């Protein structure tokens, strides 16, 4: 019944994004013989850690039929507050302590989103646009606006923990930090929640039809509340990893990234109307965006063209399947 190259497989966003990635790599390796190498791969993977965790979070919200634009502000809030607290009160704490605090702060901020969305039933975009601004403003006004470059020693230490380290044939170094394991963990955990728990299926169900979900007795409020807490926690994690890896806690960082993240997720096939989205697609979407960011220069396109290229990819990647669907519908009418 399922052929390897069924029509559905060929018209899926994931396939399209995969093909574009392969085409990009082939083009790039013509332009630069050293492109297809382990350092390129590890760069890609390192660059995908923070963006990837954000994207998984954003995907989950899209699946439930909502949209969250506040996650970058949540990440900055959690990361900056945690760093400041540790420096002033407990500079010798191990890195996982910092991670735990940041995740808890993130979850708390997510819970505030959840209260507005699940209890007061306000539109998700409006709530998160509001909290994006509030969280960011709150950090800058009440917590601090100075860049912290002397991170607690163990946070710096974390960024030096390497999973893989080596030298390429041409003498260039490459390495993959353990932080990448956090992305893998987030993907596995989210996959488990979405595919193997009733909670995850309820998230899909709500994205399909909130009214139907209510009618068959899904506790819509509880599910929505969970979503925003989980997304907040993931944002807190992404924030603290970002600070450790860049070895600086910058309160002006990250905010502004939210649209690229949502773009990556939409490229991967998640629909803004809810109910559709896969982890594979999300990871592919993130990979493509990182590739464009890191390596556009390799195929001879100036890096100022980055955002144009990403925009074109979004139009192509999401427009083409939509156009195909529309044509199919017109034929059926």
């Amino acid at each position, binding site marked *: 019944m399922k052929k390897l190259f069924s029509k559905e497989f060929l018209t899926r966003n994931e396939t399209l994004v995969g093909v574009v990635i392969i085409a990009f790599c082939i083009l790039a390796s013509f332009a630069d013989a050293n492109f297809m190498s382990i350092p390129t791969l590890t760069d890609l993977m390192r660059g995908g850690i923070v963006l990837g965790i954000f994207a998984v979070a954003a995907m989950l919200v899209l699946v439930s039929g909502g949209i969250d634009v506040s996650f970058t502000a949540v990440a900055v809030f959690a990361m900056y507050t945690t760093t400041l607290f540790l420096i002033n009160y407990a500079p010798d704490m191990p890195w996982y302590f910092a991670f735990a605090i940041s995740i808890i702060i993130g979850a708390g901020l997510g819970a505030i989103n959840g209260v507005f969305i699940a209890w007061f039933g306000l539109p998700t975009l409006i709530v998160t646009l509001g909290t994006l601004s509030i969280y960011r403003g709150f950090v800058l006004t009440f917590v601090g606006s100075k860049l912290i470059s002397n991170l607690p020693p163990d946070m710096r230490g974390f960024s030096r923990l390497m999973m893989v380290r080596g030298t390429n044939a041409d003498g260039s170094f490459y390495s993959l930090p353990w932080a990448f394991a956090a992305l893998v963990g987030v993907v596995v955990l989210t996959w488990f929640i979405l*595919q193997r728990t009733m909670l995850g299926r309820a998230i899909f169900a709500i994205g*399909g039809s909130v009214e139907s979900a209510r009618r*068959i007795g899904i506790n819509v409020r509880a599910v929505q509340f969970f979503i925003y807490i989980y997304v907040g926690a993931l944002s807190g994690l992404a924030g603290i990893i970002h600070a450790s890896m860049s070895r600086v806690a910058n309160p002006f960082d990250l905010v502004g990234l939210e649209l690229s993240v949502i773009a990556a997720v939409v490229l991967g096939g998640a629909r803004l109307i809810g109910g559709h989205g896969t982890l594979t697609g999300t990871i592919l979407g993130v990979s493509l965006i990182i590739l464009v960011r890191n390596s556009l220069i390799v195929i001879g396109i100036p890096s100022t063209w980055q955002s144009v290229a990403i925009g074109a990819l979004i139009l192509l990647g999401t427009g083409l399947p939509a156009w195909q669907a529309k044509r199919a519908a017109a034929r059926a*009418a």
Partner: protein
Amino acid sequence: MNTLDSGAKNTLIEMRSIVKNYTGVVALDDVDFSVSEGEAVCLVGENGSGKSTLIKILAGVEQASAGQISIGGKNFDTLTPRIAAAAGVMVIFQDFSLFPNLSVAENIAFSTQLSEERRLFNKGRVRQIAKETLIRVGVDIDLDARVETLPVAHKQLVGICRALASNARLIIMDEPTTALTEREVSSLLEIIRRLKSDGVAVIFVSHKLAEVLEVSEKVVILRNGKKVAEGPASDFDAASLTRNMTGRDVAEGRPNPVDPEAPILLSAKNLGKAGAFEDVSFDLHKGEVLGISGLLGSGRTSLAKALFGLVKADRGTLDLDGEVVDLGNPLAAAAAGIGYVPEDRLTEGLFLTQSIVRNVAIGRLDNHQRGGLLDLNGLWQEATHWIGELKVKTPSVEAPVNSLSGGNQQRVVLARWLSRAPKVLILNGPSVGVDVGSKSEIHNIISELSSSGIGIIVISDDLPELLATCQSILVMKSGRVTDKIFGSDISETDLAQRLAS
């Protein structure tokens, strides 16, 4: 089928002296209602008669103001949706309440999984539940298909399967046949018979009556919150049902003959579109009502859309008053004087949350422009005039359209088109989802419009409707016109045979 042995069966549902008051309004006044195991009951009434309220109380969505309810011999003081579902009362809503993005298997098994209070999702078990239920119902639907890709009739079956999977003892079906074609209805009735022999009781809440009477044992008719009639289904026919529902006789006569001298208004020649319809030609005279009928998939809807340019015909010509109408261009069709009222007025025809007057006025924005600005007064006056003309029942023209009943919504769509003074009106399923009283009023409107000289095309598979409104009927089968019938020559059974054969 012997329909009067209900005494031998156990009573499943017993509702006694149910009263329901909304602020100041009595929705239900001392209503008794009972259902036995394996019994099918038709609950009939016009909009506002209280039938929906009664169903909501039984499903636990609303609480009765007074009265007793027992399910399976057990008395319930308060019913919530969860309690009612646990007791085996399942409602299949008109929109089926499915999850379009999930697979057939998951849709069927979702509520079962919830009621078992599972935390983990087991795909194998879900498929097994779904498979067993589909076998029990005797239909074959791909378990992995996404529900959004299914035809309406299959969606309904998925809804029925979902109810059965969670051990339904009573299935309440709200308007089960409105979206189905004749053939789909008969296979649905077959399934209902099967369920009944399994001991599952069914309540039909319906406007379209003749079809479900066949499998029902009992009919209960509500009017203005009171039970006005109850009895074995064999005692009722379409006329007596209508009389009881409306409290008056609604005569469905035959249309006036068309004036043989009337000039040709719209003329279609050899219209064709690959895969949809072929070689369709007809003439529509001034003041004529032409019916186009056929089963689902016969091409009737594609043809209707092609006449208004919503679907582009590949071949053929369309002339209105001797002038060629551009194919595949709805704006040109509208400018030439063709109006189209879609079948699914909720998604295709109305801005549901906007006011009635705005919904009518939207069609006339162009004609009330003064140097790029809108003449709001003129626009409003005209819209209000047509709302009055079509007797839309509403306390205020500023009320949102979704506060209206189905019949009144249809009037709003008609008012919008009439304000443009069309020469030809295409009505696709003019009385789908409309109660009997409003239906005959819509039929009266059709005949008034046609006698004022408008040519009307009615697309429908509601045979009595076609016979009551159309002077001639085109029958379509797999994209071709197979028959042209002059309405006065034919009875309903004849027409049904020609459609299905």
